[in-house]
């Protein structure tokens, strides 16, 4: 499994992956990911009668992308990362010098997978936000912000939501004169 982030993940003895996402989920809630079935569950420790708040089975490619997005969170996930998640066996080659049409064509599988992933993520109160020319970033849906306001980390969450709106603008200038290979390696 490519998931290896220490802060977010704890590998259980079984095949479940426990994702806490303290900046996105209210206290006492965690995401449980079952990679074999491609099922993600939102579990609440405080709701003893109905602890499973949401459950969704992701399509295959959407799940591959989701894993990578969760893996790199709280950083944004670059297009290169997402393509590598979809095609791990193939050499991913995306040149920043490509014209926009060719660029979009290369990224079409990513767009499709992201689109399919979004429907599922919304059930968990999460959304995926595009960072123009860079990649995607996981964040809370605006409609679910009030859920986080009750937690002691609400000020942090508000800051994150504000930050995510900034992310929609290009934050990192695309290197123009760098060698493509170097650029690809750096962004992986």
């Amino acid at each position: 499994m490519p998931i290896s982030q220490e802060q977010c993940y704890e590998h259980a003895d079984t095949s479940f992956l426990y994702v806490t996402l303290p900046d996105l989920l209210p206290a006492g809630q965690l995401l449980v990911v079952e990679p074999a079935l491609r099922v993600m569950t939102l579990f609440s420790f405080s709701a003893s009668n109905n602890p499973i708040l949401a459950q969704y089975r992701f399509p295959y490619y959407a799940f591959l992308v989701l894993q990578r997005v969760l893996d790199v969170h709280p950083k944004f996930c670059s297009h290169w990362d997402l393509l590598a998640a979809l095609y791990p066996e193939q050499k991913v080659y995306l040149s920043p010098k490509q014209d926009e049409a060719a660029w979009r064509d290369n990224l079409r599988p990513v767009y499709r997978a992201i689109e399919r992933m979004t429907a599922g993520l919304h059930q968990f109160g999460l959304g995926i936000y595009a960072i123009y020319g860079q990649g995607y970033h996981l964040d809370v849906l605006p409609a679910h912000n009030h859920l986080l306001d009750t937690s002691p980390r609400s000020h942090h969450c508000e800051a994150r939501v504000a930050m995510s709106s900034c992310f929609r603008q290009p934050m990192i200038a695309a290197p123009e004169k760098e060698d493509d290979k170097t650029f690809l390696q750096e962004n992986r």
Partner: protein
Amino acid sequence: MIEKPRNAIAYFSPPGLLPPGQVLALNQALRIAVLYQAESEQPFVAMVQFSPQAFLLFQRALDAFPQCCSFEEILQSLSPALAQHLLQGHVAEGSKSWVQLMRPVYKAARKATEGLLSFGLELHSVRSMGYKIGPARSSLSLGEPPSLARLSFARRGTHRGTDER
């Protein structure tokens, strides 16, 4: 014992079937069953996705626990048309036609058994009655995928129940 389902998820914690503190959550839309231990830091013990027929049978068996769930009742939920044919009394119980009519039930039971082993549960065939859900007879540890040998035993067991009729 059974709580009202919300978000299409039904919760079952029948005493005598599961260890204390463990709950089965059945998501009807996805046909996914989760066994979890609410007090644990890592609560999920096992998760299985069932076929539509196996999931229906699993639900019926859980509803009926600790009683046996009759063949007619299972057939009614799997195939109402076939069940109607049976209820009209044209088919003698135990006859060849009856066994043929019950084929969807046997098939669902066989498929359910494979998944149930992950929860440490088993479907016991009660002769001329139906199926009863209960703890697995073997010492299969929870959450562990059932071995092929164990599965083949389970299959044989289910077939034996059908062959007797």
